[in-house]
């Protein structure tokens, strides 16, 4: 009796996976071979480098430095981010320029960063933000993973 129960349940299981197989295969075929866009896509995954998921507005992504209108960084080197950082990944150096304290070096070691966002929250000058929307920083060396936020170029 038990054996029969098992048998019917296995058939049921086969029907479930078989249904997935046939339905998904159908949608894959019309979506990707005949290029007909349907609402149902037959898969729950995204094809990452080509299609990207929408990042929520408050999602914490790569850090960026805010600059004043004159082009100087807003950071005054108060070291609160250095103090609050739980993973100890921020290095700031500040110097006196025309009587004001301005950061001359602001380095974040991204592969040590935990993306907790404390540095953004603690910053009294709103100098650092984590809203650049960039998530893919892949590199083959540790060197490239230390971001110099004061560098205004592409990096």
């Amino acid at each position: 009796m038990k054996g029969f129960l098992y048998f019917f349940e296995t058939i049921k299981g086969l029907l479930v996976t078989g249904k997935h197989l046939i339905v998904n295969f159908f949608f894959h075929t019309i979506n990707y071979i005949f290029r007909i866009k349907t609402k149902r896509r037959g898969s729950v995954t995204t094809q990452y480098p080509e299609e990207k998921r929408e990042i929520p507005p408050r999602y914490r992504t790569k850090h960026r430095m805010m600059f004043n209108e004159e082009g100087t960084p807003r950071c005054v080197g108060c070291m609160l981010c250095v103090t609050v950082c739980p993973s100890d990944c921020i290095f700031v150096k500040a110097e006196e320029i025309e009587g004001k304290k301005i950061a001359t070096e602001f380095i974040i070691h991204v592969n040590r960063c935990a993306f907790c966002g404390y540095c953004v929250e603690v910053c009294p000058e709103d100098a650092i933000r984590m809203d650049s929307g960039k998530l893919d920083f892949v590199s083959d060396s540790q060197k490239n993973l230390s971001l110099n936020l004061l560098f205004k170029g592409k990096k």
Partner: protein
Amino acid sequence: MIKIKINDKEYSVKEGLTVLQAAEEVGIEIPHFCAHEYLKPAGLCRMCLVEIKGARKLQTSCTTPVKEGLEVWTESEAVVKAREEVLKLHFANHPIDCPECDQAGECSLQEYYDKYGFYDNPYIIKKEKREKDMELSDNLILDRERCILCLRCVRFTEEILGDKQLFVYERGNKSYISTYKGEKIISDYSGNIAEICPVGAITDKSFRFKIRSWFLEKRETICPLCSRGCNIYIETPKDKPYLDNYERLIRVKSGDNGEINKSFICDTGRYKLAEIEKRRNYKAIYEMQNVNWVRIKKILLEHIVTLDTIILSSWLSNEEIDLALSVFRDYLNIKNIFYWGRKDGEEDNILIRKDKNPNTTYLIEKKVKNIDSIDSRISNLLVFGDFFEDNPSVKEMIGENSFIMMISPYLPRDIGKINLLLPVTNFLEKGGNWTNYEGRGQTTKPVFNPKEEIKTEFEILQIIDSLLRKE
């Protein structure tokens, strides 16, 4: 002793104190800006207001003397409300630029706002714009926006220095601190003005934008630069070197000892102490070559017995002097034992002493002769410290083919004449007892660990002692 009541609790305190001092003595903190332990009470900042039984209004605790049966409330509703209102007035013109202020972390305003503030800004008028970085002296910078006019600095120049170099100009909202015609302050004690400032109005130029104060750790020691032996704090980065050049002596702050230096130190001790960290030597050198300790012991054994002159340094601690005398004077019977040190300098009647070494008094007490009384020629010499430049007469007394052993933490100026040089810890890396000019003994502990493995003078003397006794 009289009995007073603070916060409905009875305490007995000394006569002649103010309420603020009495409360501090029994462990109750009353916030204050202008009151300073070694300055006369002024009652300017109104932050120390307390409720006193019988008084119609709140009274400033820093000016109210204690008397029998006084009843004080320091945390009542009216007092806390008054503190908030006083803080609002203090903040009325304060720029709140803590991110770039060097006082942040040790600022009274920050501390009290954290405790009693947290209000919304009640003022709609704009804050006064004033001079942000004015040079008050060669090592002080005045920020007039941050000033809360507690007048500690003015009172310091008036009461402690007695030369009245600072004044308050203008009145009311426009009043500001300045010297006469904006000239620079000239004083040997100007560093104290930055230290006693409770806010970031007067800051130290040498500390400006260097490191945040909460990364620093205080370590207690005494100042070795003159025979007064002022108590000081040495501040050093807590766990990480945040500075590029791995400086470990970031700044010197005055310690608090009412019997020696109150809470002030001279500028020499504050700014020149870092120089004893320079020109260090960590290698034992014999005839211009590095040697290890096995070899050194052989050399010592060979030459110790032929010594005819010992020159002790007045930078040795009491214990080291005792041990050296017992080895050389009592065991080896060497007659020619002298002491030397840095040459004498200027003197004033506040803190600075003529003798620029920490421990000369003890050497005189032990009947060691001064180097000036040297009369016979030296052939084999063991010398502690390198003070040849301060005592030029010694060089002339050294004969040809003499063997000179030197025990010094620094690299000598003319190393060619030294046959054996042993590295030792400097003043901040060793502890000991020190006797100041008036015979007062003080104990210090090591402030730093040596960067490399080197011995103290005491350990070297112990080695010499054990070598001699084995023989």
